[in-house]
């Protein structure tokens, strides 16, 4: 069984979600995307958000980016509660605290603008001098290996180059939190590795906290900590190559797919406290209790 692990870095928390709920109001109906997410990400940590499509990963990311207000619960980024902030405050957070890399280059870059121009575009609201902005843009392009194509329009770069440029753009204003939504999903392995290396480098060199949504286990492994979201809740975490179940606020746990083969959805199970923790056994179909060593819960 998995080992229970307490959240780390409480004193230097970059992201804190507490019972976070979000409901989409689409014409005539409501869809619950997040059902009480509890999550803490320490400053300087790198977290990969995993989970099936529709689980609520992107919704969580957009809330962290201040692009949406949660329906209920608490969400803080570096101690600033995002739930009730104004649009201007959210904009300011995106400018100063949060850098964002999206899956689609079209959502990251101005295709007609040069690589330098894109990095400078992100710095436009800052009070830096033009020369400073340009120098920073060139430095960032150097860092992502695109200095040589700095004057080329972004739309003419390859997919991998565009995503590296997107990372540079996201880092343009030195954010403390980098949010990435499927940053490698449209890239080949080599390009994806390059982008992940860049993110890791940003974390290592700049201390940038990273929260990335991904389906790619390799990306998850590269980022160190994984948080699996299922059905709008945090169902599990992985650290140091180990997968853990996260016990929900209501005591619920979400089993991994391989464990669901033992306990398929709808089956009865018996939970028993043991000296090491809790034991979960399927109840036979004839109703007989399986003898155990611990007390029933």
């Amino acid at each position, binding site marked *: 069984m998995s080992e229970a692990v307490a959240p780390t870095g409480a004193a230097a928390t970059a992201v804190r979600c507490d019972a976070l709920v979000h409901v989409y109001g689409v014409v005539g109906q409501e869809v619950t995307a997040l059902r009480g997410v509890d999550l803490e990400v320490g400053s300087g940590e790198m977290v990969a958000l995993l989970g099936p499509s529709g689980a609520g990963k992107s919704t969580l990311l957009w809330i962290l980016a201040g692009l949406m207000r949660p329906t209920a619960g608490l969400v803080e980024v570096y101690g600033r509660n995002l739930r009730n902030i104004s*649009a201007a405050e959210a904009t300011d957070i*995106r400018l100063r605290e949060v850098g964002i890399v999206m899956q689609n280059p079209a959502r990251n870059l101005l295709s007609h603008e040069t690589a330098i121009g894109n990095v400078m575009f992100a710095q*436009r609201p800052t009070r830096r001098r*033009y020369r400073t902005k340009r120098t920073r843009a060139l430095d960032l392009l150097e860092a992502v290996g695109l200095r040589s194509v700095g004057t080329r329009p972004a739309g003419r770069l390859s997919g991998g180059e565009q995503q590296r440029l997107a990372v540079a753009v996201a880092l343009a204003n030195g954010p403390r939190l980098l949010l990435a939504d499927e940053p490698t999903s449209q890239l080949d392995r080599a390009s994806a590795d390059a982008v992940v290396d860049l993110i890791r480098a940003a974390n290592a060199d700049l201390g940038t906290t990273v929260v990335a949504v991904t389906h790619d286990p390799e990306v998850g492994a590269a980022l160190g900590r994984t948080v699996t979201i299922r059905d709008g809740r945090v169902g599990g975490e992985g650290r140091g190559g180990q997968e853990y179940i996260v016990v929900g606020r209501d005591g619920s746990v979400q089993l991994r797919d391989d464990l669901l083969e033992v306990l398929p959805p709808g089956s009865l199970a018996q939970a028993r406290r043991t000296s090491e923790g809790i034991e979960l056994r399927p109840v036979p179909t004839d109703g007989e209790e399986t003898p155990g060593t611990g007390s029933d819960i």
Partner: protein
Amino acid sequence: MRGVGSLSSLGRGVRSRAGANAMILVMAVVAVASAVAGPTYYAAARLSILRDNFISAPVVARGFEATQYGQLSGTLQALQSEIAGAAPGLGRLSDQPTEAIEATVIDPDTNSGTTLVWRSNVCAHLRIQGGCPTAKDQIIISQSFASTTGLRIGENIDLPSWSPMTVVGIYAVPSGSDDYWFDRASTYFPYEDSQSGGSRSSAVLTEDALFSTEATMTTAPLASQGEVVIDDLLDVPNFRTSDLASLSRQIVGLSDSDELSGAQAVITSTIPQTVSSVQTAWSALAIPVLLITLQLLGLAWLLLFLVVSEAVRARGPEVALAKLRGQGRIRTTAFGLSEPVAVIVASLPLGALAGWSATWLLGRSLLRAGTPVGLPAISWAVAAAATAGGLASVVLASWKTLRRPVVEQWRRASTAGNDRTWVLDSILLTGAVAGLAELLATGKVSSAHRSALSLLVPGLLGVAVAVVASRVLPVACRAVIRGSRGTGLAAFLALRQVARRPGGSRTTIMLATSFALATFSLSGWALDRANFRTVANSQVGASTVLSVVAPTGTDLGTLVAKADPTGRQAAAVEEYSSNGVVTIAVDPQPWSRVIDWRTAVGPGSRETLQQAVAALDPPEPPPLVLDGDTVQLDLAVKSLSPPGSTLSLDVLATGATAPTPVSLGVLPKTGPVSLRGSLPGCPCIVEDLSVVPPPTAFAAAAPIGSIDFRAMEVHGSGGWRTVDSRFSSSTAWISPGDQPTSNMVTAGSAGLAWTFDSQLDGEAVLSVVDRPSPVPAFASVAVAPKGPYSATGLDGTSLPVDVKATLAAVPGAPADGVVVDRRFAELASTGDLVLAQQQVWLAPGAASRVVPKLEAEGVKVTAIETQSGYTKTLTRQGPGLAGVLFLGEAGIASVLAAGGAILGLYLTSRRRRYELAALEATGVSRRSILSAIASEQLIVLLFGVLVGIGTGMVATVIALRDVPQFLTQPAAPTLATFPPLAPLVGVLAAAALVVLAATLAASVVLARSVRLDQLREAPA
């Protein structure tokens, strides 16, 4: 550097969306150009109208003449001072005035007179042999005067009460109609002015003027008095529209001047009438131009709004990116608006230039040649307003995109139903219907009176129908989908998309409104064109009409026959206008060959005109011919006064153009007598017998009496023989006169009894009836019904005619013409024909051949009027100019609407390339995709175009007849109220085909741009 970076970034953005931005630019440029064209065109048209009116006006209508009687010395300066005091600003508006001092000199011996004149700068307007007078008591005399008197250069002439004058030159008058002479040529040059034909009428008692120097006049004997004259012509070529009000004030100042009236100065001018004509024409142009400009500007703004909406929506991802990168509301707004705003701002100078260029081109073909087309301040103000409207359109169009949350932009789904397009539609519909109701229900637009407000009908109707139609189309498409299960995939996709598309309704509104306006304006222009031609054709009567003066003593018809022996190219015509009725005397055969038969508008009118022309020239009585050397008349005088009156026989010898009087001797007081006279060069035709009072009478007494004519004999080589004198027929002789009872002719076995009382005339005349009496005629239906009618003859006296036919429009004088045979009209005239206007009517293309021949015959052409020229004149009037402006602007708006619609559909479909690529990935053939795209666009475009054309036609039926076409609506001919259908349908069909072709081309381009690898991209 910061600005440079932003600008270069802006430039790259504009370039990256070059197509859409170019379209926005074109839209904005056209919007500004439409706005600018109105006031620019109006300003230029006003100037053209102003110059047209003043230049074509007689001198007295574009200048004034001030005259004052008094001492020859000093009066001129006094008059100048009085004018300067009464109209101080007139000098700025007029040329250098011409001044003159005139004194009448009477020769007591001959009782004839002449005028001694100093006229400023006179020598520049005369052709002088010798020199110009430069010193006191030097004069120049006319060639005519020189030949009459035998005076030569260097000789002296004694004028009563004046010092002897030395002749220093002999002048001829190149053109007495020059403005310089200010209509005084007939006073100055009764003989010499070639334009008068050199006729020496017995009424002329004054010789040609003698021109001298100012010194001669101002040093005249103290008792000498005369008239001082100031002729002042407006400086029309430099006349500006803003000068008109000032001119009116100055003329009023002249006419109301106490000083001038106190000095008994006389001001002669009809400038106020010209000013009034100009102002009427301006008014006729002002309201249509305003309405047209506002309608088109509104439409251009709507088009701009729709195109910008599409373009800004296409920038949605970039705006979302700006928000994502932490750019605040202001920066995001600036970023989102920067491109369209830059394009719109660029449209200000470009639009102004385009509007000016279009107006310049329009002006070249429509306005008076040489009319400058400028960009007045009002044009710039309107251009700025149009640009501001464009910017407002951009802001409105961008509002939704700029406020759209980033996530909503990415998810492409609204969180709530927020389609509020019905609000705008409701506002448009309510406004349009209310406007139509106001116009139609309150009678502001009705067949009762023509009003420029009718021009609002197509726009309002177009908007109302378009809004309704735009809502009907999706519903209809849904119904078709439900009703036809077996529809092919392409048709299904097209119908489905139209049924759910939000942009389709806007496209329909845009197209339907603009095509409604274009159809209406095209109809109006076609109707204008047709009616202008109809009016010009009938008003001028033939392709070209020359006003001419034939040499004295010649017959115009004979000269025309020499110039055109075929009788098919030219016809002699004489006209006399009196009390609003024009008597047109024609030579029926050639006239019928050169007139414009299109004048005969309406069923059966051509045949009526043919019959009427044929009826003009019935068989005439045979001439009474005398062939011999002596004629004898047997008669009996019953009574006669005054005693000593003679009997004279007028005969027309062979080849002669004027009759020769043959004196038969003195008539006895009473009793029978045989009188004889020698015949000159006969055979000759008897024209009339006349009783002439004795020449010794100081004041000629009117002959009164009664004579019986018994027989007429002629002596020839075979001795005396009796001539068939027709004395036994009372209809063979006529005694013309105003009082039918005073002159009477009766016939009996004893011969012809003639009772006469010539009253004020100097002679009593008994004429051989050589013409039908009354003269056959046909007339405008408004002038006279069929039957006897008293027209006015060519001499201004009564001319009894028998109206054989009436026509809706008579060639040359559609509503007020009476047409008679020219020879009969001349024969019926007893007085002088000098007041009749001589004309030559020419067939199309005949002018170049006939005019030189006429001039070779000595015929002077004084004016030329053509049907095409008359048409142009009508086109240059206010309503005509407004019609062309409307057509031009509505045409451009339609082209833009179609272009904008295609672009809008293209942009919309381009955003759907992901879906189209997905369709292709699922196995839908490219052909089906192309077919679906093309069908979708065609449904939307053709629906909008057809609804627009239909609405325009309905508006044409409802309102076109009420749109003013003329400054003064002509009473005849009957004008069309609906435009010629064939060209209208042709043009509209061609427009629809162009739209079709452009749509197909855009569809092909779009279908080719669909690629499977677009599936890698997220839906835009």
